[in-house]
């Protein structure tokens, strides 16, 4: 056997034998009377990138936002069921939302850097959580985060420029650096490349590969090729239900459900 195939085998085994980082059991989300998510149970692995796919309005983004309680900011949203992070119920009353969101970071569809300097964008999180002892340590965190996000070489000479002056792809990598800076355990990405051109998209996908293993990553995408490229496990959502969840290569080549098959062959969506 070659090294390559050994690696592939190892990756395959990792994908098959998950170490769950987050577990959701019987999760339903309501907006007022309308049920957006219906009884979803799913495990998010530590070592794998998990992709959520599905047609527009299927609830994949809504479900993603329940994983760090971003839905709390929507007045009439209600979440039933149980979501655990390392066994801790994140909807328990004693769970601190601020800490949870530091542990479960998020990257949004549209790059949304703060209208501040590049440095301030990355330093903001560590600063409000008191993660850095002094200026030198903070500088270190900023550099490390920007390096991990693959942005350091491009911006190291203009850290005081506004974050909004960067290109779209750079802005999105800045947002990823900002999320990394607070040292999260899970990173949620809500269609992180849908507003970017193909080259910037390729960089983001490459970055996801590099971050894998260090953080549990969940990515929502409506681009099936992207899901196939970046993820090891894929969940297919349709009309608020989780239809199928499994190893990415298997789900795309040999879907078990009729609706999954229809979707990945382009019958609808």
């Amino acid at each position, binding site marked *: 056997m070659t090294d390559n195939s050994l690696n592939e085998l190892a990756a395959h085994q990792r994908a098959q034998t998950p170490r769950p980082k987050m577990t959701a059991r019987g999760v339903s989300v309501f907006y007022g009377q309308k049920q957006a998510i219906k009884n979803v149970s799913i495990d998010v692995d530590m070592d794998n990138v998990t992709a959520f796919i599905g047609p527009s309005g299927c609830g994949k983004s809504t479900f993603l936002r329940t994983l*760090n309680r*971003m839905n709390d*900011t929507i*007045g009439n949203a209600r979440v039933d069921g149980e979501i655990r992070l390392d066994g801790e119920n994140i909807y328990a009353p004693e769970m601190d939302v*601020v*800490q*949870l*969101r*530091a542990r479960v*970071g*998020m*990257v*949004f569809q*549209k790059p*949304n*850097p*703060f*209208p*501040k300097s590049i440095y301030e964008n990355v330093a*903001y*999180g560590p600063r*409000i*959580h008191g993660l850095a002892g002094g200026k030198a340590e903070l500088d270190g965190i900023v550099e490390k985060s920007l390096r991990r996000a693959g942005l350091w070489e491009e911006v190291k000479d203009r850290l005081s420029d*506004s974050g909004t002056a960067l290109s779209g792809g750079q802005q999105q990598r800045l*947002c990823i650096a*900002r*999320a990394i*800076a*607070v040292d999260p355990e899970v990173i949620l990405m809500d269609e992180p490349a849908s507003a970017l051109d193909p080259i910037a998209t390729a960089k983001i996908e490459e970055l996801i590969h590099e971050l894998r293993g260090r953080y549990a990553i969940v990515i929502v995408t409506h681009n099936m090729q992207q899901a196939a490229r970046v993820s090891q496990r894929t969940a297919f959502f349709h009309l608020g239900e989780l239809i199928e969840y499994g190893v990415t290569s298997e789900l795309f080549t040999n879907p078990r459900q009729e609706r999954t098959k229809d979707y990945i062959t382009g019958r609808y969506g």
Partner: protein
Amino acid sequence: MSDIPQVELMRMPADAAPRRPTDWKTESMQRRIRRRYAAERRFRLLGLAAVLLSAAFLAFLLIAMLAQGWRGFTRTEIRIEVDFPAMALPLTPAALRGGDADRLLAAAGLEEATIIAAERTLGPGGDRLLSEAAWLTMREAIRDDPSILGRRAVLWLPAADPIDVAAKHAGDPRSEAAYARLRDAGLVRTGFNSTFLRDADATDPAMVGIWGALKGSLLTMLVTLALAFPIGVLSAIYLEEYAPRNRWTDLIEVSINNLAAVPSIIFGLLGLAIFLNTWNLPRSAPLVGGLTLALMTMPVIVIAGRNAIKSVPPSIRDAALGIGASRIQVVFHHVLPLALPGILTGTIIGMARALGETAPLLMIGMRAFIASPPGGLTDPATVLPVQIFLWSDEVGRGFVEKTSAAILVLLAFLLAMNAIAIYLRNRFEQRW
């Protein structure tokens, strides 16, 4: 089965003739284009005319005010020679240097002394050429330098109102003649009226000052700003960022919008009923004026603040929440700095309206005759617009130009206030 639709397709063009390319050169097309260009031109000219018209109104206002008003800043004075030793006033320099100066000066009969001195210098009836309040200037001179009591001194005393008007070539023939005589004798001068910028209201237009009203306005605006700005901004933040959307918040929103449209005199009545009659706060005081105007200004700030906060993109809030910022950190680190320029614009509008407000202040007694500048928030005071209103009501010829001068001071105050706010706004915008 497939034949039938094909037959129908074949028949279609027979109904509707084959589509010819549009001819853009026909007469009707050309006419349409000409009409469109004419409409554009007409609209642009109308817009330009509107701008020019408003600029002309503004220029007219400013020029009219400046033409009238600059004379309000000047004053005519007459040279009087006073032989203090000959007057035998019951005053000595030594006594005046003690603590009792005010009482001694009040009892010294300086009013008569001034009349005598005027008659000696200007001949019989000479005192009528001087302002009735000219003796006050003499009193100041003695207070400032008691040593003049021991010698002959030359004092420049304010001229009577008719002479002052005549000096500005707008008086009646008799005063004009009297002024001409004085001028030929070299006994008269017209100079900058420092009294106007230093003193408060008076009965004699030669002695009035705007400082009392200016200081009253300043104190009133401070109270208004100190109350309306924080309360307005906090209300706006709460309503936008924290309050749940329900019937109560809808009701509050409607009430605030209505409050912003309530005629100002109603706020005056409210101030009279609550601040004066119930809380027994002092009448005519900047404190009460400020409270009343704060009630009026707050809704404007709330509405502008809510709009400014609403226009901060939600993605910024998401970004901050997403890395674990608390609600209050989101508001104070991100939303408020971005909304501040808009909030400041609303505050400028509200404060400018409050500064020009007269009606509610009349209700709480700020129209009283106040002859000395207020020393603090609870002293009786008046404000610039009320002072203008009071002076415009006076019959004395000299008050006309004082009114214009006061309007200039009010406009300058307003411009200064706006300039500060615009400076602050730009500073906050530059940070981003």
